[in-house]
């Protein structure tokens, strides 16, 4: 089967294109500022790997809109996952907490896809070991449903109805070496790189 430029079989269906993603991020940036009443104590922590990329993009959007830079970092949740024993040992990703620290801040966790909610549960635990934020919010590019824990996103780029057999793959320029950002929906084999 011929592959697309994203390295994906053609059958995987693009559900968001570059423009969609860009608009979603801009909207989320605005919403964060609106709810936080400014950017003063906001800190963005992306969950590696693509969540960290999205956090950086959001920070840039906020800077464009507000003219101030918000601290942005990454929070690896691997060591906090509840499914470690179910899979081979995983490689750790980078955790980079800005020097300001998380205490008393409004932390916005950023991830690409919200699914079972288990990653966010792990992130909340990881955050707990780092300090005591004023509040924690969650921003995701795609919410595909099927939650297994009482977790919801505060900011959603797109709500995407899926079946559990399907797989959602986010491809970002900085991370995946693709020419254009996109989000694909298909079966596991269809969306596998």
């Amino acid at each position, binding site marked *: 089967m011929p592959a697309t430029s994203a390295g994906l079989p053609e059958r995987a269906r693009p559900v968001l294109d570059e423009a969609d993603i860009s608009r979603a991020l801009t909207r989320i940036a605005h919403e964060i500022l609106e709810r936080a009443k400014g950017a003063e104590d906001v800190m963005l922590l992306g969950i590696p790997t693509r969540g960290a990329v999205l956090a950086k993009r959001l920070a840039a959007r906020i800077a464009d809109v507000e003219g101030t830079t918000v601290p942005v970092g990454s929070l*690896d949740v691997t*060591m*906090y996952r509840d499914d*470690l*024993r*179910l*899979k*081979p*040992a*995983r*490689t*750790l*990703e*980078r*955790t*980079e907490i800005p020097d300001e620290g998380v205490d008393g801040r409004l932390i916005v966790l950023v991830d690409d896809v919200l699914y079972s909610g288990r990653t966010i549960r792990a992130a909340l*635990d990881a955050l707990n*070991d*780092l*300090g005591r934020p004023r509040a924690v919010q969650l921003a995701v590019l795609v919410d595909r449903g099927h939650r297994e824990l009482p977790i919801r996103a505060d900011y959603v780029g797109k709500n995407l109805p899926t079946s559990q057999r399907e797989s959602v793959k986010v491809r970002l320029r900085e991370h995946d070496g693709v020419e254009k950002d996109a989000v694909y929906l298909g079966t596991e084999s269809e969306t596998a790189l």
Partner: protein
Amino acid sequence: MKRHLLSTADLSRDDAVLILDTAEEIARLSARPIKKLPTLRGRTVVNLFFEDSTRTRTSFEVAAKRLSADVINFSAKGSSVSKGESLKDTALTLEAMGADAVVVRHSASGAAYRLANAGWTTSHVVNAGDGTHEHPTQALLDAFTMRRHLGGLEGRRVTIVGDVLHSRVARSNVRLLATLGAQVTLVAPPTLLPVGIGGWPCEVSYDLDSVVPASDAIMMLRVQRERMSGGFFPTEREYSRRYGLDAQRMAKLPEKAIVMHPGPMVRGMEISADVADSVRSVIVEQVANGVSVRMAVLYLLLSGNQSAIGPDIAENDNTEKKGAGA
């Protein structure tokens, strides 16, 4: 299936880099107020030490505890081992107690290998030093320290000086550093070099002064005083003069070169006090890095349903290869 860390010779380059990278991430976490991670909660790590080594045992203990594992220290002193209980029976006991991993230090070369492969235990085995064979986590923490200071190991010149013959640290370091692309030179009097060293992936020199100026890192090995009575060299003074690192020799090191020692040091013998305490010395840092590296090893061996590092062991294959000679 990968299960154990017994020898650096078993580590592929990818394995070694994975351990060092993981340790790097873990080291970043250790600056946090809450250093504990929940990763190995409910797992039991046994420190099985047949030889005294407070340093290594403590390092493993801290590493395991920071990952939330339960730690049992089982040392030869005050246990049934000193009454002559065998390695096998000790292993069976620990197995019955439900140890997930056994960190073993033993005076016999191959003890860790035996523990892992004799069918006495299903635990993961981490070699914390076996006789004069290997001490893989020491080599990993050395490599980690060097990588941090030298910005990488490929092509870096590492000089290891001292009692190579009896040194498990040297053996583990030579294998690991070669795997990681460093150029290793061993320096020692010929009496303290093993037979057949020509086949090791390193250079050998008897002349420290000629090697010092071409060293990015120099690692001094401990020389035990009993080696002198074994007739390996004439006097401490002569050894120190020919193979010790003092300020004068250190001055001939390249500008950014570092001085290392696996500890415990014999100040005034293989290393002078001013060198050990100098700015080039990374000896204290080695100790700190030991915890991160050991956390990485425990994490990679224990956290998943399959270890990420170590030799690949075919499952259910206990039949040992029988060589049919020439």
